[in-house]
């Protein structure tokens, strides 16, 4: 008995979609468009975060040790002090000679002629947890006794972080606005179906059908539209991302920025798109039928 009943309700939901083909098509298209815009900005956000992480990995803060300290003194006294700072992820001691060697590895040896060890100071290479607090942490490191100078790539990090923040805010605003647009279109599509069935709804109410029963076909309609929209948007996003990825790698070269591969983010994209589709569909259905259920 239950099965028959659900079969009936689901069938009615599907029938609504095909009775209003054009509006159904329109609302699916709008949902796809909204999801793709949301997706583009979210993925951009993810990529910029990845770049910021990369910068974090590559750009350590260098804290130079007072000339008067020996290597042993410095690593013994200062290492733990630096490690105990809030925003510090790791601290590595680099002695004068090690610094010289790595410099020579990177650059031509001829450049080094005549430069001796004394030019290089003992130093600590420090990785941060949160790059956006670089300024504060730099100041804290400067306050440590025995540290004479701190080199931190604050400007570079700041720039990326402010770009990231702008994009995050724009994404969030777009997601909210487009969410409402989708909901508006969806609820109006379903309202069309409720309007076509207003006589039936009135009779359902008069013979004592429950509100959830009356609501059901319209929610099914919304869910189907939402899931179809979410699924198609996912496919479109996939194609778009792959094409852009190829373009960027081609034009910028592989080594400059590492693009997050779609294989790594697709579960997130798919789940988010379907969830948004389902939410918009179900809420749209509830909104559309709301007025009929008051009496």
């Amino acid at each position: 008995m239950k099965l028959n009943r659900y079969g009936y309700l689901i069938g009615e939901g599907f029938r609504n979609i095909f009775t209003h083909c054009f509006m159904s098509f329109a609302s699916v298209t709008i949902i796809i468009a909204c999801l793709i815009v949301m997706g583009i900005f979210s993925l951009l956000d993810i990529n910029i975060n990845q770049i910021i992480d990369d910068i974090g990995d590559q750009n350590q803060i260098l804290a130079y040790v007072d000339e008067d300290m020996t290597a042993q003194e410095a690593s013994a006294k200062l290492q733990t002090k630096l490690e105990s700072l809030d925003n510090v992820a790791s601290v590595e001691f680099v002695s004068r000679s090690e610094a010289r060697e790595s410099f020579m590895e990177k650059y031509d040896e001829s450049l080094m002629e005549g430069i001796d060890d004394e030019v290089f100071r003992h130093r600590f290479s420090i990785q941060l947890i949160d790059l956006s607090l670089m300024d504060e942490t730099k100041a804290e490191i400067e306050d440590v006794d025995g540290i004479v100078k701190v080199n931190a790539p604050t400007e570079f990090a700041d720039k990326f972080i402010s770009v990231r923040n702008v994009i995050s805010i724009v994404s969030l605003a777009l997601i909210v606005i487009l969410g409402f647009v989708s909901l508006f279109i969806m609820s109006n599509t379903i309202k069309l179906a409720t309007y076509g069935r207003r006589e039936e709804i009135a009779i359902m109410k008069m013979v004592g059908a429950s509100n959830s029963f009356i609501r059901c076909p319209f929610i099914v309609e919304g869910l189907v539209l939402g899931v179809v929209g979410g699924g198609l948007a996912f496919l479109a996003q996939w194609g778009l991302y792959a094409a852009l990825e190829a373009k960027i790698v081609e034009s910028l070269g592989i080594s400059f920025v590492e693009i997050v591969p779609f294989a790594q983010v697709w579960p997130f994209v798919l789940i988010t798109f379907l969830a948004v589709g389902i939410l918009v569909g179900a809420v749209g259905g509830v909104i559309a039928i709301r007025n009929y259920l008051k009496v």
Partner: protein
Amino acid sequence: MVQMNNVTMVYENSDVAALDSVSLTISEGEFAFLVGPSGSGKTTIIKLLTGEIMPSDGEVIVNGFNTVKLKRRKMPQMRRTLGVIFQDFRLIDKMTVYDNVAFAMRVVGAANKEIRERVPKVLELVGLEGREKRLPAELSGGEQQRVAIARALVNNPTMIIADEPTGNLDPVRSLELMLLLEK
């Protein structure tokens, strides 16, 4: 079965009362008629009984449910005890006679088997056998009304309410109908 206590009904968009302090009681097994000229408030009383509108004042008790105090969620339960025949029948144009009647059972959650057994019986009772596949537009006024009656009867309500059941019928048909309702 029905009790109305000092019911006053003033429609939102009007300033005169459609009903002014009406009290009435209809007991079980009673066959009650409400007569009055057009505009005297008969349909208003029916709408109050079905919970389609709420009284401005007073209370309406139908089959033990007080419509004013009833939670909205419980309203369907009250309505299932009623079979209503509307003045304008309110059949669904695009559904056949059979489907119009079956619809009323389906939407209160009846099983398909139950529907297949019950609908033909009720259609026979109102004299519509052989008309199952017709659309309302292909029926006479009297036949349409009998579809509406079949639909009101099909869920075995404890009370049947008919709004102007003989309003657009000739006297012979009216008599037939009265006999039918009395079954």
